């Protein structure tokens, strides 16, 4: 299994720069997830690695070889597409066998590889069927089989689960995780679904507007976002971003409450607090108070959307089924141990008193 190294890769559509100089190394056997909002360039970057998009500047190396100008089939990559992209006129067997046959493998060797792969993915009974006689989940398993059967250096997944229903997505996600372990394969996975990113990734690459915002383990990205974009993008419900200042006694909220921690001389900062780091409290000990505007009962937890006195919004994630009425006055207390601090430039500041997170 090979490494993937991107050195200052850039891509233009006409005058528009869509990939703005990305450096990235994916280690052998690692599963890296590209995540970001629509149009951030994650799929384009994956397609540049696959050779389906030209690299305008920079270099792409796969398994130590410069493949920047190599055609897709000579890069040692296999790709699983969002819409499966199975050859519609071929049976599942022929879909798997096609690449091997064209590479000149003998008939019995092709058959052995196809049968082994089908057994691994439990799709043996689908082999005689054409794609139109399969469900979405079955098609995607065949598409994954077509990638595996070629034994590539690197697997590329372009939002492969987004066309599947929720239950199937969970099942396929765990199947991909299992394959990653069994094959010890290098995989790059593109998704806009954070749950997929968090559960599958060894490392997450958060992209925005053609740039890398942060590279890190799921825990690092979640607990120590590098900037406001990552803080707002990763995590659902999203992190609360509260305007604050650094005063002589520590972080001070707009409401006047001083939380302690980092001291300063009145610099404007943003305090990031995950919704689950807020607790209900009494009016006297509250850091923030607001009116309940929306209450989502999820059974084991309750999501509370508040309108604060200063007009801002606050989301709380509370354990259990909390009985509250819309319009109720709610008092919240911030647990500074799980909070993040961002400077005026949007970059993360080290917050004294916040707990350290290690991957």
């Amino acid at each position: 299994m090979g490494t993937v190294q991107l050195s200052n890769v850039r891509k233009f559509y006409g005058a528009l720069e869509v990939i703005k100089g990305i450096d990235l190394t994916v280690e052998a056997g690692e599963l890296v997830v590209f995540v970001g909002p629509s149009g951030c360039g994650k799929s384009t970057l994956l397609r540049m690695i696959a050779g389906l998009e030209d690299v305008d500047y920079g270099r792409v190396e796969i398994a130590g070889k410069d493949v920047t100008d190599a055609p897709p089939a000579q890069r040692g990559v296999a790709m699983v597409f969002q819409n499966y992209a199975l050859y519609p006129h071929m049976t599942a067997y022929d879909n798997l066998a096609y690449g091997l046959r064209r590479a000149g493998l003998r008939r019995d060797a092709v058959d052995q590889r196809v049968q082994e792969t089908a057994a691994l993915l439990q799709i043996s009974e689908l082999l005689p069927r054409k794609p139109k006689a399969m469900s979405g989940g079955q098609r995607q398993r065949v598409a994954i089989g077509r990638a595996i059967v070629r034994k590539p250096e690197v697997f590329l997944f372009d939002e492969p689960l987004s066309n599947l229903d929720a239950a199937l997505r969970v099942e396929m996600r765990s199947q991909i995780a299992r394959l990653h372990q069994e094959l010890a394969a290098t995989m790059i996975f593109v998704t806009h679904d954070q749950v997929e990113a968090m559960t599958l990734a060894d490392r997450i690459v958060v992209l925005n507007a053609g740039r890398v915002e942060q590279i890190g383990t799921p825990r690092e990205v979640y607990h120590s976002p590098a900037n406001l974009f990552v803080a707002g993008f990763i995590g659902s419900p999203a992190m609360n971003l509260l305007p604050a200042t650094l005063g002589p006694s520590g972080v001070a909220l707009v409401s006047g409450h001083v939380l302690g921690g980092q001291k300063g001389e009145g610099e404007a900062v943003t305090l990031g607090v995950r919704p689950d780091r807020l607790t209900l409290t009494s009016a006297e000990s509250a850091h923030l108070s607001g009116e309940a505007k929306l209450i989502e009962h999820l059974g084991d937890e309750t999501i509370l959307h508040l309108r604060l006195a200063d007009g801002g919004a606050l989301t709380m994630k509370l354990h259990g089924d909390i009985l509250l009425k819309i319009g109720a006055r709610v008092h919240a207390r911030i647990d500074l141990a799980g909070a993040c601090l961002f400077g005026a430039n949007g970059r993360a500041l080290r917050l004294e008193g916040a707990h350290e997170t290690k991957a």
Partner: protein
Amino acid sequence: MPITSAPPEAAVLPRRNRKAERGEARAGVLFALPWIIGMTLFVAIPLVVTFYIAQTKFQIIGAPKWVGMQNYEALWSDPAFWKSAQNTLIFGAISVPVKLIIALGLALLLNRATALSGFYRTIFYLPFLMPAVAGSVVFMLLLTPNAGPVNIALEAMGLNPPDWLLDPNAALWTLILLSLWPLGVETLVFLGGLQNIPKDVSEAADLDSPKRWHKLVWITLPLITPMVLFNLVIGIIYSFQVFTQAIVIGGTTGTPAEATLMYMVVLYRAAFRYFNMGLAAAMATVLFVVVLILTLLIFKTARSWVHYEGGEI
């Protein structure tokens, strides 16, 4: 390939709402009605009338007189019928496949996404808008033995070009050559098929093999087989009906020495020169039966080589 006990394909497909389907079918028939009426009036009824006239002696003036199979017997012993049938068969057997291959090549070129692809597509389609008569006349001028630009160019290259239109050995080939132009509709049909191939399927093929011809033979061609079938059937029908170019170049006698005498020209001659409508109708009936049999044969083989995305025919 291993045979496993997979359930039949129909078993995994959702069952349709039959009642809604019936309502849709009624609406469908209503929408198609104008066309069905036109088809009945201008195709089906004339077809039956042709079958009838083929068994009569009918010279436009006066009533048709029943003669049974006499017209077919007359055809059987008519050398012009056999000569024209032979010419038409040679013409079709060469021009149809060559035309399909060139049209496919053009479509593959036009399918490449470049900044000018819209421009190129228009340029390639424009000649099709030119009437066949005008096109044939232009080619006659181009191919004039001494003063024609084609022969002047060939002679300048040291070649000894034939008298394209008057040499009995060359004239049929010239007609075949002319039939290759223009290729508008065939190219357009292929282009439509090529553009219908999902981009990711094409990209998956790029990832599976670096060789372009692999993708052409195993992925692209199978996916446009419905268009190949369409162009093949239409091409055969048109080639059997070749008329305009043949009559402009060879007149009603198939000059030179009946080399360009085509079936439809003989049919036309029988009907509107000799006013022998019975014989002409018999020729039309024979042509209809031959084309029908050929088409049915092609459709029968099509099951094994044509891939339909929506389901088999």
